[in-house]
């Protein structure tokens, strides 16, 4: 069963990502004006995202369950699983509309769960960094880590200014504007622990630990990219660019699920 999932996951992920990229690049291609109409593609995207997020949450929980109670990474897996579960609930709330071919509301109750997911995943990443640093591996000095936090924080602050400008300038209701700004801001904040964990796990490159983390962290980077694109396109009213947003999220959730799956294999294999 697990091998079948492994064999199916990656080709399906690349195919789904390419499909949405194709839709974005050549929206008037026959395929996208006949068989795969925009409404159907949005329904497909909803199902794919829901499936990938559910797999990510399930496998994170399995990783947590595979590890002993006093292991320092267990709380981190609990937090990551909880965060992905919040994403599953948020996505399920949107999918209700998307599967019926209706316009998903923004904001919606799903946004509450998307927002709660951020502190959970941020805390998970920090717990992973802390556990790995206390495991006795030589991974550089505290000063280097502080330096990385400062540099990443400064870059993210500068990026936030660029990303938020069209959102703040856009004419939209206050709550819509606040949420459109909150997602990229939270993503920028998330990039700081992401950079820390990326630097930490970079030391394990070439091994299965390094590969698993590269996949998970690249997934989170694409999630941030998807959020930024969503905020940008919403503010600019460019709904025609939605395929790229869907593609970013599908790739993101797939990489996260695939990376977590590799962690589970590491724990149980």
């Amino acid at each position, binding site marked *: 069963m697990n091998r079948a999932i492994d064999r199916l996951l990656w080709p399906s992920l690349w195919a789904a990502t390419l499909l949405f990229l194709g839709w974005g690049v050549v929206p008037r291609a026959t395929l996208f004006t006949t068989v795969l109409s925009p409404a159907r593609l949005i329904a497909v995207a909803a199902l794919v995202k829901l499936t990938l997020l559910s797999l990510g949450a399930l496998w994170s929980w399995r990783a947590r369950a*595979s*590890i*002993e109670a006093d*292991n*320092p*990474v267990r709380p981190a897996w609990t937090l990551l699983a909880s965060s992905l579960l919040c994403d599953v609930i948020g996505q399920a709330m949107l999918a209700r509309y998307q599967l019926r071919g209706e316009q998903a509301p923004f904001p919606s109750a799903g946004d509450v769960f998307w927002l709660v997911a951020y502190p959970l995943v941020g805390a998970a990443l920090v717990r992973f960094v802390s*556990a*790995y640093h206390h*495991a*006795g*591996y*030589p991974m550089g000095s505290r000063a280097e880590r502080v330096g990385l936090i400062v540099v990443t924080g400064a870059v993210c602050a500068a990026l936030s200014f660029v990303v938020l400008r069209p959102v703040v300038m856009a004419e939209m209701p206050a709550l819509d504007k606040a949420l459109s700004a909150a997602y990229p801001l939270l993503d920028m904040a998330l990039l700081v622990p992401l950079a820390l964990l990326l630097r930490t796990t970079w*030391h*394990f*490159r*070439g*091994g*299965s*630990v*390094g590969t698993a983390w590269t996949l998970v962290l690249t997934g989170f980077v694409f999630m941030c990219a998807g959020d930024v694109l969503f905020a940008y396109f919403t503010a600019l009213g460019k709904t025609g660019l939605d395929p790229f947003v869907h593609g970013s999220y599908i790739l993101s959730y797939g990489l996260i699920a695939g990376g977590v799956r590799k*962690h589970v294999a*590491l*724990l*149980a*294999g």
Partner: protein
Amino acid sequence: MVTAQAVQEIIAAITPFIGENMARSATRVHCEKLGISDPHVTPEQVELLIARLETGLKVFMGREKATSLMQPLRAKLGGAS
């Protein structure tokens, strides 16, 4: 036992999981801390080295799997079980 040979065996066992770069660095650091140097290493020092590396592996693969990974090394290199 020849230190270089024992260290090489240990590095080879953990490299698939944590990569060659970290396997070498972690082993070197623990050897320094444990006072392991060329040309010879005692079975007790090997056991200590394996135990230190096993502790590090637990965060990635759990106690049970880390122990089962290191067990053949203990048997082969003569560390206490």
